[in-house]
């Protein structure tokens, strides 16, 4: 039995307090890239009662994604944006989701993140991370940007940190653990980095930063 919107809102308010929950419910957050980082960021933010999520990825769910990404075996072959929308709505049925099945480029970025208060960079490739961070910082210097670098390998979870690089730009990760020079990506460490990003989003909204 799915709870009503009012019941869920009351539960959020009980957990977060009315004032804070209103800040979360009024927020629009964009998640760019829906892999290990992005799918986990989106799940955390949906659970926290963020009002609207903009989710974007061009790719489809692959069998090799299941070890760390928030998809199910029966979603292999679906577009990640569609599959994640479905999963998020099962978690939080009244959240507003705007999905984009597209590769984010400097040309289309405004159409995707223009409405967002906070943008999460959750790409895989270093060069694409750089393009997004540069494009957002140049076009939207007043929007908050929460990016990630360095969460691969079997290294210690304690090395994952969040650093405020500039007023509107936060960077999560250990800064060095490259997927190509480590022994792959492991769910807990990637989820930990995603959790840093999601918690930073909540802290920005709560004016705790």
């Amino acid at each position, binding site marked *: 039995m799915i709870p009503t919107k009012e019941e869920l809102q009351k539960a959020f308010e009980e957990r977060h307090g009315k004032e804070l929950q209103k800040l979360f419910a009024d927020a629009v957050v964009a998640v760019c890239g829906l892999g290990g980082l*992005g799918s986990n960021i989106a799940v955390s933010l949906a659970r926290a009662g963020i009002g609207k999520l903009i989710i974007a990825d061009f790719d489809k769910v692959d069998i090799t994604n299941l070890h760390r990404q928030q998809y199910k075996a029966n979603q292999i072959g679906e577009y990640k944006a569609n599959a994640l929308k479905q999963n998020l709505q099962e978690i939080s049925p009244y959240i507003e989701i705007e999905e984009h099945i597209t590769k984010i480029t400097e040309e289309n970025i405004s159409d995707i993140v223009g409405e967002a208060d906070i943008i999460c960079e959750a790409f895989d490739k*270093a*060069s694409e991370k*750089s393009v997004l961070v540069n494009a957002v910082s*140049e076009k939207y210097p007043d929007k908050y940007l929460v*990016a990630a670098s360095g969460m691969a390998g079997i290294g210690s979870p304690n090395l994952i940190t969040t650093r405020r690089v*500039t007023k509107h*730009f936060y960077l999560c990760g250990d800064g060095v653990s490259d997927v190509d020079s480590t022994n792959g990506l492991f769910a807990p460490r990637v989820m930990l980095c995603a959790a840093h990003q999601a918690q930073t989003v909540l802290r920005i909204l709560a004016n705790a930063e």
Partner: protein
Amino acid sequence: MVKINGTQFDISSTILSDYLRQADYDTKTIAVEINEEIVPKSLYDKTVLNDGDVVEIVNFVGGG
């Protein structure tokens, strides 16, 4: 002196792109902020590092 990622360097008047080359950065995987503002990549070879500048160079590594 120019502060880069927390360390002071005696490189005032150096062009940003020259510093990045010398320090072995790959400009494809970085973002550079000077005094809280992003430097567009197209301006790396026109940007002079001035005395007192605070520079943050973020080098992205792959994985996500």
